[in-house]
């Protein structure tokens, strides 16, 4: 992608994001939104983010564990699960990042030592 193509991509990203944000804010109040759509939207965040997390955690690192034909990075998995528990309990971004990265580095060090 050359520079102006990248610029067009960025402008497209901005436009589609703004359109999503404005969607219901601009909708006239007398238009009723289907209940099913509203209920479905409630699950979008819970679905999209784990869909981004799972391959990144399991399939990007070095394979240390195999299940059938699948190879996983078990250390990244454990670190992510620990971080998820901390995120759930504390709701703190700093605590989540520190726990996850700390656990991964400690496990790496321990495994390699």
């Amino acid at each position, binding site marked *: *992608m050359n520079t102006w193509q990248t*610029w067009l991509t*960025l402008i497209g990203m901005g436009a*589609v994001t703004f359109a999503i944000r404005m969607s219901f804010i601009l909708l006239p109040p007398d238009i009723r939104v289907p209940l099913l759509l509203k*209920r479905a*939207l409630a*699950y979008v965040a819970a*679905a999209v983010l784990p869909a981004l997390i799972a391959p*990144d955690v399991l399939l990007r690192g070095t394979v240390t564990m195999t299940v059938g034909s699948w190879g996983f990075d078990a250390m990244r998995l454990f670190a992510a699960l620990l971080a998820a528990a901390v995120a759930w309990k504390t709701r703190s971004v700093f605590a989540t*990042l520190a726990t996850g990265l700390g656990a991964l580095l400690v496990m790496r060090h321990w495994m390699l030592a």
Partner: protein
Amino acid sequence: MDSPRSAFLAGARDQAPGVIGNIPFGLITGAAATAAGLDPLLAIAMSILTFAGAAQLVAIQLLADGAPALLIITAVAVVNLRMMMYSAAVAPLFATLSLRWKCVIGYLLTDHAFALTLARFGDGDAAAQPHRRWYYLGAGSLMWLVWQISVAVGALIGLKVPASWSLEFLIPLMFIALVAPALATRAHLAAAGTAAAVSLAAVSLPLKSGLLLAALAGVLGGLLVERFSRDPEVAAGP
């Protein structure tokens, strides 16, 4: 909150913890852009145009992979689709404002602004809160300013640490911190589990279509569990 000024300051103050928590997110996003070979100017422009961290990170990864523009924009739309729910939630609070105000409110709408505004005004009486747009503006503009600075600093300085520190692992960790508050019910957990499983199974599909497929499957999983759940808390819904 008896004047626009005090409402603005109250919003900024209430948003401060979330803003501080977002600083590492912004630094990582900026640094990831530079590491992916993106010009810092483009990283900053992307940040101002989209103002959406998770989508920016996904777009940076796709740009680095040489993905076509249409695919990147589609992926950004999928990642940001959750904001449609936020838009629906805050819309009644600001229904009477001018178009210009609505555009500002829309542009500043984030996970944090949504959560804060709903917690503060969700079940309140509109007439009793004449300055709530200023409260929202205070919260949103502080978040905006600190986010843009963090991304710019991250992009200009980069992360000059050895690869063995695995700092790229901060990206999924950031998403974990972002999603944890959303997993409030059994149905939300089902949505998360389904989407994660489908995205793993579909990871080799072309054009990142696995992300869209996983999102659809997750939403469907959530709806199904909600439909058939005997848990009264889930059945009643929020």
